[in-house]
């Protein structure tokens, strides 16, 4: 006798392979002020090594880390004036990648330039432009400015850096459409969830509450807090999220950066930070405290994402229900950053909207939370 289920074909996971190339786009490599300590900094990114240094005016420059003379590591050298000096033979390289001086030599090699990377400093963070074809960024790809950031209307960025080994960064991008994981992994209760992909931007609009059975710092210890979150990926790796936490007539506005850069094609650095908008009656310390509580909550949440990524399989053919977000369309959008500019198709950039029906999920989750609360009360 055959059991009916046995006739259903087994669905195999297509694990695919990580791409060997790295995405075209602006990548945030850290807080700008952390690079202004008078020392050069080495950053392992895009399968290579870069050096970041500040010139006498405080402008940050990014060069290939290895000296074109004999391969010395410039990040182990010293900043001298507006140049970075190699620790091996003191060759001096300026921010444009030109050799300015070789103190022991009569002639400075003018023809051998090293690679200077295009940078952008915005909202207190430093970005590096990456393009395998060596194209330069167009102005519309720039990360938008946060209103009032330069005028001190916000607390300072909290900043957390986590190395994730054994995972491709597409895993973190997939989360932008993953409505249900917010309940299971992040202890949020999404009531409204919509994605919009348009050009190089991927938006996520979420209205959620915290779970009553598992509290996190993301609710900022505010009772019955509703979180109104409008998050945007500007390109492949940088998400800027505007969050309003509304509770009993009080609204806290914060910004969250959730960004990453690839180290190899199977590891990446995840970085996130928050700022809280100072409001009337809120002291500098209170704003900082809010931002810290929020960040601590996020830190726990990201730790749970990482736990999932570390142990999951790569999957090219996810099996979806009607209540899942638009994973396939998100990946189609994401592909635009991994193909040559000439190969970007209209499908990758055309506007697409997807509003998830959360009603069935909420019904089930409210029940689960109630059961958990009843269970813990016994």
């Amino acid at each position, binding site marked *: 006798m055959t059991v009916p289920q046995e006739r259903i074909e087994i669905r195999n996971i297509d694990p695919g392979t990580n791409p060997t190339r790295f995405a075209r786009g602006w990548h945030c490599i850290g807080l700008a002020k952390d690079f202004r300590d008078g020392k050069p900094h080495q950053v392992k990114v895009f399968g290579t090594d870069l050096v970041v240094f500040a010139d006498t005016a405080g402008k940050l420059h990014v060069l290939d880390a290895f000296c074109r003379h004999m391969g010395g590591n410039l990040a182990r050298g010293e900043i001298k004036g507006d140049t970075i000096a190699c620790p091996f033979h003191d060759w001096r390289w300026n921010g444009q990648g030109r050799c300015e001086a070789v103190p022991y030599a009569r002639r400075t090699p003018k023809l051998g330039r090293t690679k200077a990377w295009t940078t952008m400093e915005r909202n207190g963070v430093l970005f590096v432009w990456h393009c395998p074809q060596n194209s330069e960024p167009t102005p519309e790809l720039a990360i938008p400015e946060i209103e009032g950031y330069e005028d001190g209307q916000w607390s300072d960025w909290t900043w957390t850096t986590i190395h994730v080994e054994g995972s491709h960064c597409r895993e973190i991008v997939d989360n932008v459409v993953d409505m249900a994981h917010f309940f299971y992994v992040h202890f949020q209760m999404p009531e409204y969830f919509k994605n919009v992909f348009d050009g190089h931007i991927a938006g996520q609009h979420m209205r959620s509450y915290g779970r009553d059975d598992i509290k996190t710092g993301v609710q900022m210890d505010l009772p019955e807090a509703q979180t109104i979150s409008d998050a945007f990926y500007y390109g492949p790796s940088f998400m800027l999220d505007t969050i309003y936490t509304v509770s009993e007539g009080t609204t806290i506005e914060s910004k969250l950066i959730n960004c990453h850069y690839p180290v190899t094609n199977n590891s990446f650095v995840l970085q996130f930070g928050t700022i809280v908008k100072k409001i009337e009656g809120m002291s500098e310390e209170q704003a900082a405290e809010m931002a810290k509580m929020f960040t601590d909550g996020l830190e726990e949440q990201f730790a749970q994402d990482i736990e999932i990524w570390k142990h999951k399989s790569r999957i090219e053919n996810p099996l979806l*229900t009607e209540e899942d977000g638009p994973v396939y369309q998100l*990946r189609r959008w994401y592909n635009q950053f991994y193909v*040559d500019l000439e*190969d970007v198709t209209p499908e990758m950039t055309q506007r697409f909207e997807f509003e998830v029906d959360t009603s069935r999920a909420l019904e089930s989750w409210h029940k689960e939370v109630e059961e958990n609360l009843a269970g813990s009360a016994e």
Partner: protein
Amino acid sequence: MQSLACHTCGARVLVAKYSPAHTSIQWSDEARESCREIATAGPGAYVMRCEALDRTVDEAVADGVIRTGNRIDPTIAPLASTETVAPAR
């Protein structure tokens, strides 16, 4: 997905409904250009929704023009893995 023209500007989009509360809308570049609400937002501006189009979808659902159906996703090529990189033109 089913084809639908906006009652306000005539932009033709593809719509899918998996349930009354779910909506997905696939725009073309042409439809995006004819949308008045997107045009009002300015060049390159991001808009979360076009209210006129959302109304059109709701009306089409009420009139039975757009029917709810099961999920169908597009086939997406895996990430380009080892293709050579062409120099930028």
